[in-house]
Every structure is written in structure tokens, then in C-alpha cells.
């Protein structure tokens, strides 16, 4: 379909090779299995395939057609037109990993900008060129801490407030290793704040993982936790939503050793779960322990400032089975999206969107907690998401409101047994006051339904 060859081209090429038919190129393959008849639908042209995919997509009702307060790790933010205009440049999206720096300075300099902005935003010294998503970034933090202590501190404390998918991913990654995971197995209550994690720390603890905001939207000052972690000789990893960092203290200020995060909020479409962007930043002293690619500044042989992938000796293509991570392809284009987004919004825009999320979420929380029967689960400070205790099954309320084209949030009962009446509600700059008032009216009416 996308091959330019004419029959004459093919014939000429076969003659050069010295064979008669294309099939002869495959004569060394096991004959009985050669050229299977694949049972696939017949080929479509571009016009037809576009129609088919539009039809398929029509069966979805999206966050733009419904009124949605669904977050839980992926958020409906606006991505300015500039972001996609840049992503659509073929020079960016049809390039490979920049292994040849002389002809890849566009990608390399963009990675350098990304590293700079994420390091600044998180308050850390260095940032790598990305991981797959917020979940695998936490798994890589666990991996890094394990190797940092050469396996002598195999215990990892996961706060129950870390996203359930992230904790499950860490469990999968470590299922065949010596790492033991505690904290979210009933050792502390689901609502545990940082101070309740401190008693779990001992001299076998390598890493403590918390979230900021946590899965329930709460924000904690982790300074005291960081002190306790460091006193025990362990590391602290904080998983962030970067939009919150437009307003809130950088986790570096608390003393985090590793900051991971889901970068989807930074101009990346929801796209049913991916591709997203795994943020990973750390302290200078751990830079050689960190997995993933890094762009470093240098000069070329003409004296020009330029960028190149550096410290590659840490990576799998050099160290092979002695590498601590196997990551190769990462989320290059999504890191570019986040970079363009942060460049365009800049220091004013990011603060503005962060404040909009905060104010709208607080307006929603105020209104909802004013309805008889509903109350906020926690009185802890929150950012743009909060957990509501409902007067009856959150799933039922949710299902009922869905019939009115409203996604009322995320019922957390399937992830947190005993929380069947709890609804996690996220608000972004995309939700108008009218939307919020409608949600409030819906939550109230559903009680009479």
C-alpha cells in the first residue's frame, strides 16, 4: 500500500539479486508453514478506513459529550492548539531516538528543555527523558532504591494513598524479586497520613512511596516523613500530578529523593489511557543510579553549544544483563508535548490553570457537602479532587447520573473494599460553574429517585 514499487522496479531488482521471483527470497524458511492464509478483513482505502473509524468512535461517549468529573489519575484538561501543531511536525514525530546527535539536535535540545522544566517544577536536580507512565515510574523508583542499597534494604512502604494501578504495577514488577511491599496491606488505615507511615520504617526499609496529591486528592506536607525516612537511612519517593505544582510547594522542598509523576495533565489527550508520560526526577547524587535517557550539554567540533545523550553506560544497550532497568523506547513525543505546554503556559499560565482547578474543586466540594446526606471524607487540604461519602452506594448514584449524561466521578469501592459509598470527584478548568451546579443538583435529586 505504501510501497512505491512498480512491477518494472521489482523485476529489475530481482534481476540484480539474481533470482526470478520474490518467493525465492523465502526458500530457507520451513516450507510447510510458509505463506499462511491470514484471516483478516479485506483491505480498505483511506476514505473507507476513515469512515469505519469514525463509526467506531461514534460508539464512544467522551468527556466532551458528557459532563465529566472523572479523574483518578487521568484528567480532562485543555491542550492549547500550539501543542498539537508542534507534535504534528514530521521532523519530530517521524524521527528515531537521537542516537546521531549531529542530525538530531531538535529532539535533543527539546529533551534538555524538558529535563530543565520538570526538574524546576519538582524542585529536584535532575530529570530523565521519561518513563512509560506514572505507574511504571514508581516501579522504576522501587527498582532504583533496591539497587541503590544493593539489595540490603528490600522493604518498600507503599502508602495506601498511592494510585491503586501504580501499586499493582509495582507488585507485578517485583513479583520475582526480593522486594517486599508493605503499607497498603492493612498495616495502616486507608486514610493514613504521613505520620502513620513512620512507625513502619525500619533498617531494612529502602524506600517509602507517597503521593502528592494522593489518590484521594489530599495534599500533605511530607517534610517530617522525609526526616524520619532519612534518619532510618532510606529514600523517599513522591508521586505527583504536575498541574498541582503550578500552585503548591515543590516536593523537593520536603526533602524527596525521587519524584515521579503522571505527566498526562500537561497537554496530553486522555486517549483512553495512553500514551501518557512518566515523570522521573532525582537528586544529583543518584544520577548514575537513575534509569532512562539523559540529554547533556556539550559542544561540537565547530565550537557550537549542542546536546547529546549522555551517561549511556548505565543503559541496557551497553550494560546488558548488568543494567538495572531494561527501558529503551520511552515517551519522547509526549515529553515534547509537556515541554511545549509548559513553555506556552509559562510561569503565569501554569499558576492560573492550577488555581482554576483548585477554586472550582473547592466550590464543588462546598456545594456537595451542603447537600443533606453527603459529606467530605477528609478534612485534609486537597487540590482538585476529593472523596465524598454518599448516603448510599456510590455505584448506584453514578449509574443513575450516567443516564443523564453525567459522569459523577469515580466510585472507589472496587479499589478500596469498604468504600462502596465513596465517590472520588475531580474538577478541572474544563468544568464550568454550570456543570458543577448540575452535578450538585443531580446528587441531590438522585436521593429522591
Amino acid at each position, binding site marked *: 500500500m505504501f510501497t512505491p514499487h512498480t512491477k518494472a522496479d521489482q523485476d529489475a531488482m530481482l534481476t*540484480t539479486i539474481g533470482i526470478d521471483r520474490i518467493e525465492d527470497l523465502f526458500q*530457507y524458511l520451513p516450507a510447510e508453514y510458509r505463506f499462511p492464509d491470514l484471516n483478516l478483513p479485506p483491505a*480498505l482505502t483511506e476514505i473507507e478506513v476513515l469512515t469505519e473509524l469514525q463509526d467506531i468512535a461514534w460508539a464512544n461517549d467522551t468527556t466532551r459529550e458528557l459532563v465529566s468529573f472523572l479523574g483518578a489519575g487521568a484528567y480532562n484538561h485543555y491542550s492549547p492548539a500550539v501543542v498539537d501543531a*508542534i507534535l504534528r511536525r514530521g521532523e519530530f514525530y*517521524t524521527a528515531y531516538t537521537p542516537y546521531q546527535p549531529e*542530525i538530531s539536535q531538535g529532539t535533543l535540545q*527539546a529533551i534538555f528543555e524538558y*529535563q530543565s522544566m520538570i526538574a524546576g517544577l519538582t524542585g529536584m536536580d535532575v530529570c530523565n527523558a521519561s518513563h512509560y507512565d506514572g505507574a511504571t515510574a514508581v516501579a522504576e523508583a522501587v527498582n532504583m532504591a533496591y539497587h541503590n542499597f544493593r539489595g540490603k534494604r528490600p522493604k518498600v512502604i507503599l502508602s495506601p494513598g498511592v494510585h491503586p494501578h501504580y501499586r499493582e504495577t509495582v507488585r507485578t514488577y517485583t513479583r520475582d524479586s526480593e522486594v517486599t511491599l508493605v503499607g497498603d496491606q492493612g498495616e495502616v488505615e486507608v486514610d493514613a497520613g504521613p505520620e502513620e507511615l513512620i512507625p513502619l520504617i525500619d533498617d531494612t526499609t529502602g524506600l517509602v512511596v507517597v503521593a502528592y496529591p494522593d489518590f484521594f486528592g489530599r495534599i500533605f506536607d511530607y517534610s517530617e516523613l522525609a526526616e524520619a525516612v532519612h534518619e532510618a537511612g532510606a529514600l523517599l519517593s513522591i508521586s505527583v500530578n504536575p498541574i498541582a505544582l503550578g500552585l503548591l510547594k515543590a516536593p523537593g522542598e520536603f526533602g524527596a529523593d525521587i519524584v515521579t509523576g503522571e505527566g498526562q495533565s500537561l497537554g496530553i489527550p486522555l486517549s483512553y489511557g495512553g500514551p501518557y508520560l512518566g515523570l522521573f526526577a532525582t537528586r544529583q547524587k543518584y544520577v548514575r543510579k537513575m534509569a532512562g535517557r539523559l540529554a547533556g550539554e556539550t559542544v561540537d567540533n565547530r565550537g557550537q553549544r549542542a546536546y547529546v545523550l549522555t551517561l549511556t553506560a548505565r543503559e541496557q544497550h551497553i550494560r546488558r544483563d548488568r543494567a538495572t532497568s531494561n527501558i529503551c523506547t520511552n515517551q519522547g513525543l509526549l515529553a515534547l508535548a509537556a515541554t511545549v505546554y509548559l513553555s506556552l503556559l509559562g510561569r503565569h499560565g501554569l499558576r492560573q490553570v492550577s*488555581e482554576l482547578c483548585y477554586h472550582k474543586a473547592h466550590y464543588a466540594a462546598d456545594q456537595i457537602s451542603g447537600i443533606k446526606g453527603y459529606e467530605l471524607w477528609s478534612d485534609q487540604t486537597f487540590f482538585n479532587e476529593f472523596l465524598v461519602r454518599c448516603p448510599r452506594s456510590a455505584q448506584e448514584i453514578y449509574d443513575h447520573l450516567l443516564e443523564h449524561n453525567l459522569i459523577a466521578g469515580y466510585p472507589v469501592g472496587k479499589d478500596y473494599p469498604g468504600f462502596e459509598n465513596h465517590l472520588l470527584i475531580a474538577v478541572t478548568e474544563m468544568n464550568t460553574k454550570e456543570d458543577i451546579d448540575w452535578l450538585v443538583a443531580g446528587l441531590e435529586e438522585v436521593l429522591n429517585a
Partner: protein
Amino acid sequence: MPEHLMCELSVPGRVGFQYPESDVPAAQLPEDMLRDDLPLPELAEIDVVRYFTRLSQLNHSVDTGFYPLGSCTMKYNPKINEETARIQGFANLHPLQPIETSQGALALMYHLQMWLNEIGGFAGTSLQPAAGAHGELTGVLIIRAYHRSRGDTKRNKILIPDSAHGTNPATSAMSGLQVIELRSDDRGNVDLDALREHCDDTLAGLMLTNPNTLGLFDENVEEVNRLVHEAGGLIYGDGANMNALLGIIRPGDIGFDVLHYNLHKTFSTPHGGGGPGSGPVSVTEQLVDFLPDPVVDIIEPGDEESGVPPLYGLVAPNKTIGRVKAFQGHFGMFVRAYTYIRMHGAEGLRKVSENAVLNANYLLAKLRDTYHIPYDRVCMHEFVAEGRWAEAPDIHALDVAKRLMDFNFHPPTNYFPLIVHESLMIEPTETESKETLDAFAKTLIQIAEEAHSDPELLKSAPHTTPFGRLDEVKAAKELVLCCVPEYARG
């Protein structure tokens, strides 16, 4: 010309994007939790657009020139893929939406799973892994879980040929397996004697790339797979080179138990300057229950007669290894791969691989007299040449690679695979015309002549690119990894 960094272009007070005024009453901000400063630039929209547009122009890309990077399958990325992935009904769909509101997305994933099963000859597929290396990790965890489920706990050893990509050993080490490297024989196949030595009851499996990184189809593959299976091990297939096999042979038919695909290689989703990839994993019937959570399945059958479609849902396999990432996988890449497969059909996919192999063999035929081919037999979609000549002792493959840039060609992969000295690994892909291949071959032949007549021309290349060779030692020594902007300095 180098471009200024944004921290140098920033002007206090410039605004690039405006949000609407808040329509709700302001809440009290948490004073003790607020940050003092936000170290981000201040730029106008035009500054940002020009900056990134100009940066893009410093890149070589498939859209601007030939990119014969071995093992990477830098084929043309159809523009229609970019349209379909951005259809509103896909782009704004939240991953945790109820299945009743996401039947389109689930149906698309279900069909893609089925098609990958069909193309590879397998029984089940997970679309969740984010990239090839992530698919490898998934596959190796599945193999370990399978052995463990049978009470077979001493299988802690995995065999990896010396021609393998570095992710294979790194993945195995991550999953706690002892890696044993297998040598290749003099035809580039797995050495059967070396293999037999390790076929015992501690063998978890073998990771095999076929065609291998020399671009050669392993002539002993059926025997290799038989020996490993006899010893109770499983075969992991690294599908990085599937572009040679579409409609040609199905790995599942010749004994592979697990295989990852790279949608960003074989199925035309763009490489994005280093990602996102997408690394679905397919398995045989006996491994289906171990796939990551979730997979898409039909949870209520439809009725064709009355036109009621089935209800698709997300299902956790019985003995799942668990999630390997958040949510369902790189859905945007699934839409692109679906588009691509749908536009080809069975016959079209076979032509993809036929032409990919034709192009590689054509280039091989044109270059054989000038460049030494260490394993010279009919190749698949790529081949490995040596960038060295006894009469030009100072010239390395790297010099040939850098000189190619002067002619707007991206160099082949060099210094990989490790078993060939001064290797140049060339993968033209099926989307390149005879004219492009002729021009590339002609240039490589000219460079070989220059290597003998004017070696300095190669040693100092590239000359016509915006940047010359970089000081990599300085980068690693000084380790400047962030711009320290004026506005963020104390």
C-alpha cells in the same frame, strides 16, 4: 546554528496563553503549602511556535530523508494514522469511563487483539505493554509464572543468543533470571551444540529474535525450539523484526510460545523521537491465563440477526501476572495500528514483508562487492555489513556513518550487533523506492572510495549538517543536564 534555550529567550511579563476568568467564588488558598516561585519561562505564542519549529528543522526524520536504521524499521508513517488517532471520540475518552460509554474503543482493541493473534499464530494477546522492552518484561514474567504454577520452581536460567538486542538480557535480569549467553555458529544461527549444553531442568526458556539481528532467518529454528521444549523451557520471541514475517511465516506455527510486537516498527506507528512505542504480547493457549490485567473480551454475546453488537468489557485473566502499567495501554497507538492493518488486509501485509525483504536483498547485492558481508546469505528485511577495509586502517564504521549524513542519509545502526566488528546494520524497509536505494548504494560506494583516497574527509565528517561531531566526553564529565535560567538563579 544553535538555537537559544527558552530560559534565555524568556522576557518577564510575556504571556503565551490566556485562561478564562474563574466563574466560581475564590476559595482560601493553603498559604503554608504554596510555592514561592515557578521556574518556567515567559514567552509569547509566536516565540514558542518559532522556537520549536526551528528546533524541528535540526532533525533528520523519515519525512525528510532515508532512515535505514537497522532493527528499528523506520518505515513511512501514514498521515491518515494521525487523523484517526485524533478523532474526537477516541482522543477525549477517559480510561476509567464505564464500558457502556466506551464500546467503540473496546471493540477496536478486541479486533486488534484478534488480528495480532492471527498474524503471529497465537491464542491470546495483551495490548497493555508500552514498548518492546516492556513487552519483553511482560513475556518473561509470564514464563516464570507458568513454571511456578506447575510447581516447577527451579527454572531460573534463560538463554540469550550473543546477537540479541541489549534489552533481552536486561529484561531477564530484571525478572531475577540468570542470563546465559549462547554463541552463534558461523552461519549466524544459534549454535546447537552450545544450546544442548544448557537444556536441562533449570531452563526457564530461550529469548530468540528471528530473523536475528544479522537479518538472517535462523535455519535451525525448528530444532532450537524442539530442544528447548523437550527440556521443559519456553520460547520467547522478540518481535522487533516482524516486518520480515507478515504473511510469510507465523512464529506461533514454528514453536514460539510468547512474542511481543512493536507497533512502532512493524505496524507504522511513529517513533516520536524516542517513543511512545507499543509492545503487545501474544501467547499460546497454555499461557493465555497469565496475560496482564486487563484484556478485552466479549462479556455479552451480540445477535447478528437483529444487529445487536456484542458487549465488550475489560477482563482479568484467571492467573494474571497483574498490571504492567496504569490503564489499558497506549490506545492512541492501537488506533494507528488498526488503521494500518485495516488498509492492508492479508494480501497487503504479505506484500509489506515481501518488499521489505526485496529491498534489503537488493541493497545487499549492490554493496556486496564494496563492503564485506560477514554472514553472506539471502537476508530477510535487513543485513549487516562491515565498515572497515584492511587498506584503510584508520577508518571505522562510525566514520562511514557520519559521512553519510553529508548526503542527507541517516546512518545505519552501527556497533550493533556486537558479534560483528565495525558493523553497519542496514534496514531499508518496504516504503523506499528503487531510486532511493540506488542513490544510497551509490553514496556508500563513493564513501568506500573516499575511505581509501581521502580518509580525512570521513574522519572529519559530517560537513554539511548544522552541527559537527560532538564532544561526548565533555558531556559525561561536566554533566550539565538542566538549563539554569536567569530567573531561577538565586
